[in-house]
């Protein structure tokens, strides 16, 4: 009889799991605000805003204020823009202005607004074998890195950072390829780790680098050129072009991101941990 009991117990456990899983709605706290018509809001964004922890700070405030459930899908900027072009997202927070303008011109996104910036920096081994320190322009720095001995790790994932890096090579008329040019096909964190392990150089956004600095053997070797600015815009997916877009939610999120209170939080974010902000608010 014992085994029968045990078997019943097993079935009971499975049943419990089934029943509890069926009530799949998250236990969201009810705000005083009226429930929005469509609750789900898909935010397609870049990994840097999620990995830095900025969205974990902002999203709960937005959800509390408006009653939306934000589904943050953190992917490379290329994929985020692609999701917009397919109508698979409601709102975007990305950082590749040129690519964004194309998508905007195609009518896939509307209401595109400047949110914040930080910058890209070149990092590499402290010994700096290519002598980036003291160079003044990004062009000089990238020229020095072309076909270097210690290697350069590229994201290779069509992200905003990847687009920035490829754009600079292209402007210089250089075609990086060969054993020194390591294609990581990964997010920023993994790419930094690979560069650190291999003693190679890479281009990174400052925020992700600062967040991971303690785990890396990489120093900032070049910074400060204006073309290395990393600019973030927020935008809505065009509800007139695609079906099922949460237009009101998208509009509310754009409004939220450029609101003064939010901008203040962005400007303060990271100061306690890194001594300097990770992003600089830009919305007027």
């Amino acid at each position, binding site marked *: 009889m014992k085994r029968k009991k045990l078997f019943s117990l097993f079935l009971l456990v*499975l049943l419990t799991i*089934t029943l509890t*899983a069926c009530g799949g709605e998250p236990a969201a706290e009810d705000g005083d605000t009226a429930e929005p018509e469509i609750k789900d809001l898909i935010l397609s964004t870049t990994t840097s805003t999620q*990995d830095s922890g900025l969205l974990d700070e902002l999203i709960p405030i937005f959800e509390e204020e408006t009653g939306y459930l934000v*589904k943050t*899908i953190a992917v490379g900027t290329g994929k985020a823009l692609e999701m917009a072009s397919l109508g698979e997202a409601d709102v975007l927070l990305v950082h590749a202005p040129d690519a964004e303008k194309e998508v905007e011109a195609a009518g896939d996104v509307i209401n595109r607004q400047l949110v914040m910036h930080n910058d890209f920096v070149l990092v590499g081994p402290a010994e700096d074998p290519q002598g980036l320190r003291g160079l003044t322009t990004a062009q000089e720095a990238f020229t020095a890195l072309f076909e270097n001995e210690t290697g350069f790790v590229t994201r290779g994932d069509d992200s905003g950072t990847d687009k920035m890096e490829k754009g600079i090579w292209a402007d210089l008329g250089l075609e990086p390829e060969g054993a020194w040019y390591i294609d990581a096909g990964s997010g920023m964190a993994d790419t930094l780790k690979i560069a650190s392990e291999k003693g190679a150089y890479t281009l990174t956004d400052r925020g992700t680098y600062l967040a991971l600095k303690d785990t890396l053997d990489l120093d900032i070797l070049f910074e400060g050129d204006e073309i290395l600015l990393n600019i973030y815009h927020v935008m809505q997916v065009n509800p007139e072009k695609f079906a099922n877009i949460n237009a009101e939610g998208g509009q509310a999120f754009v409004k939220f991101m450029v609101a003064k209170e939010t901008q203040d939080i962005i400007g303060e974010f990271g100061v306690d941990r890194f001594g300097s902000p990770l992003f600089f608010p830009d919305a007027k």
Partner: protein
Amino acid sequence: MDFIVKGFFQALQLLLRGDKEVYSIAFLTLKVSGLATLISLLLGVPLGLYLAVSRFRGREFFLGGVNAGMGLPPTVVGLWVALFFWRRGPLGFLGLMYTPTAMVIAQTVIATPLVAGLTLSAVQQLSPKLRLQILALGASPLQFWWLIIKEVRLGILAAVMAGFGRVIAEVGASMAVGGNVRWYSRVLTTSIVLEVNRGNFSLALALSFVLLFITYSVTYLLTVLQQRRRQT
């Protein structure tokens, strides 16, 4: 070296303190993977039994499908399920993209061939004479299947363990169709990926211990069940 040790102790601290988010992630993981395993059991066992006993044209084709399906890459399943559930996809109107339900569906797709395949091979290990004997003794179809299931129960439990182990460990499909949304569709594997990306190795380590603990506990319970039944 010391950062591993440090991480280990931070992990323990985190667990003992009873972090609310860690518990909610662990609970969702158990729910999603447990439910997926249960459904794959309901689908996979009958499929395996049927394929083992029946004879029809093109049976090898299905057997090959089940056996190949045992190794379905979760990323591929995630991509396919996502294609169906996208707003423009054939099932987009259900609004299931980026929900725990979509994760259960994807994990069920991953586990079902495994459960079916292992059930199938367990049945095939039975002597063919047994089947004839059961039938010769005048068993009704229902009695026939029940006896077969009783004979292969060890194999079925092994299939459940393998299926559960596979889905609780997968990350690709959960990431693709669940989206790793905080407080909503974030499970242990996807949060480990996120925390590694954030450089929070101690938190990632803590989550990995939780994952191993859950996997071990569930498998242990099933093993006890399996071994007890064997003794009688």
